[in-house]
């Protein structure tokens, strides 16, 4: 769930902001003063013309539909967050780190980039439009442009252009939900639009399971499907 924002914090924040912007503000979302969190992979504000979230991590309806065809190796879940953006949009590093791989065997064609961070996680930037010019071992800083967004098949920039962002475990053998690890105003990043990537598949036998963006399971590559429900909705 979202960190609870108390009235005291809001009031104090309002006053201090009014007095001279001396303390952190809500500018980067609901997490106040958590410098160890990752940032967003795009600079500037979201918008329908530039970038927005189109698919959450986890038990999405789209992932359920493609649980075998696309996501079978990832236990049937969408094991990243999709940010739709025009092909060629600059992608920035979500945290300081060291380049771990360029176009390695980690999926998300046609190009990918992995950055290893001091907290042990590895960020993966997928469906890039071109091979990153960074070198393995090179240091990158949070906010630095590291790649450019593309589209899975490399050509269909009109309708499917997006960045697939993963947070992998240190051994690269799995992923975790990026939402709690990133400092962002998540409720606003979908721009209010509906989509099957933004809704979660319902297991009618356990309807509260994995129904929020904050409550999604970790994925371990190669293990059994997590969402092969006997009574799903939609079917």
């Amino acid at each position: 769930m979202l960190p609870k924002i108390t009235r005291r914090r809001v009031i104090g924040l309002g006053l201090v902001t009014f007095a001279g912007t001396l303390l952190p503000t809500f500018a980067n979302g609901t997490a106040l003063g958590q410098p160890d969190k990752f940032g967003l992979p795009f600079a500037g504000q979201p918008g329908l013309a530039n970038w927005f979230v189109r698919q959450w991590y986890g038990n999405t309806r789209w992932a359920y539909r493609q649980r075998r065809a696309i996501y079978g190796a990832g236990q049937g879940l969408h094991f990243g967050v999709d940010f739709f953006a025009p092909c060629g949009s600059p992608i920035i590093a979500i945290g300081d780190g060291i380049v771990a791989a360029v176009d390695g065997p980690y999926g998300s064609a046609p190009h990918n980039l992995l950055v290893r961070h001091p907290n042990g996680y590895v960020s993966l930037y997928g469906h890039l439009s071109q091979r990153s010019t960074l070198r393995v071992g090179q240091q990158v800083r949070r906010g630095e442009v590291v790649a450019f967004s593309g589209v899975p098949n490399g050509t269909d920039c009109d309708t499917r252009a997006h960045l697939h962002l993963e947070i992998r475990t240190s051994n690269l053998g799995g992923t975790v939900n990026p939402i709690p690890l990133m400092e962002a105003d998540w409720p606003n990043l979908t721009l209010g639009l509906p989509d099957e990537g933004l809704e979660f598949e319902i297991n009618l036998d356990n309807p509260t399971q994995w129904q929020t963006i904050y409550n999604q399971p970790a994925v371990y590559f190669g293990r059994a499907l997590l969402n092969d429900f006997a009574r799903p909705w939609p079917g």
Partner: protein
Amino acid sequence: MPYLLLILLLLFAACGETTNTATLSPTISEPDLTSSLTIAVLPSVSPTKTPLQLTNSPTLAPTNVSSTPNALPSVTSPLLTPTATSIPTNEPTATSIPTNEPTATSIPTVGPTSTPLPASGSTANALPVPFQPVQRQIAPPNCCQAFAFARDGRLYYYDKSATALLDLAGGQSQRLTTRWGLFSPDLSLVAFSARVGGPTTIEQVNDGTRRATLQNRSSLTLISPDNTRLAYLLRSPNQAPEAPQLFELWTGHLDGSNLRATWTLREGANLAWFPDSRHLLLTARNVANNRFGLWVVDSQATTGQSATLIVESKGLLAATLSSDGERVVYAITLQGEVNSGVWLANADGSNRRKFDWVGGWHWSPVNGTELFYSPIRAAGETASALWSYDVAHQQATRLTDPVTLPLRLSFDQWQIAPDNKNMVYRSTTDNALWLVRFR
């Protein structure tokens, strides 16, 4: 000296907390569930006690006061209107019309211009006090999946192992059926599938009488508003998963007779019946000519020639039809600053206009000229508000104040009640359902 000022301000903030504790968080429940529907329970707020008033203070300036059609005093808050957002608000010009859209000529930007709600502390003269919206929690956290309103105003949802009904006036829930699927608007029929990839059954809710069985691989099946016809998009099997998905649009009678594939298309979505129970709206790419956009299909036509492209855009994402079937609102994405946005048009594609806000929307269930929306604002604003747009008069009205009654809308999970006075939303704060009375 600056540090002294900072300390004094923080002390003042702490004092403000003790004077008012009930206006910020939707986690605060109202003890009287019934009376909270009609009685404003928010405590009065002194402009001098809470710094939240600082954001409202500009609204007290005479130059910001405007009038509503009812001549009630209203206040426009420049910090709270969607126009203050940094989300692109480029006004489209005649040249900004998507190149394949032949009919739009003039696209005046339509945006919020006034609010009916006086800010706290404003004077109301001798006129009646405007309605003060209130909200209360009506269901616990994690409850009530896929909630929606029936035509009679009852809220229905799936919870645990059954479909439940909640009467907003009485506050009690009751079991409707053990089935879950797509219901007819009057809740008399349900289309459901008992197993993955299996047939869809059309069943009467009251007695379980089976009306039809469709071999449609669990395709979501829509019952027409008059309960006489069915429609669904049948996804072709064995497709390359990353390829644009191929569908057939099937229509037929409620009893399963006369079922036939009306049209072959790719990337079908947003399927909806018109009120006449004959025509259908959907977004799709026509296989025959690869044109993508918003289509109207005559379900009783004998060939796919009946499919009419009313809006063409590669970036068309969401689209919804007004309750009278006269208008449509849709979103276009990633097509440049001019073309991308939320658009309003007549249901034949004419008279297109782009809103100067971005956000989620729902048409009024009973008034085809009223659109409700919740604009997404600049980063940093932690509350959101409900707005209404009167299509006939091209006027926007803010219905709730994001300062005194912040709504924590969980993405697109909100619905307008058929009485046009209430909305229910899932809160991002506690994942519970909240009822807002805004009129």
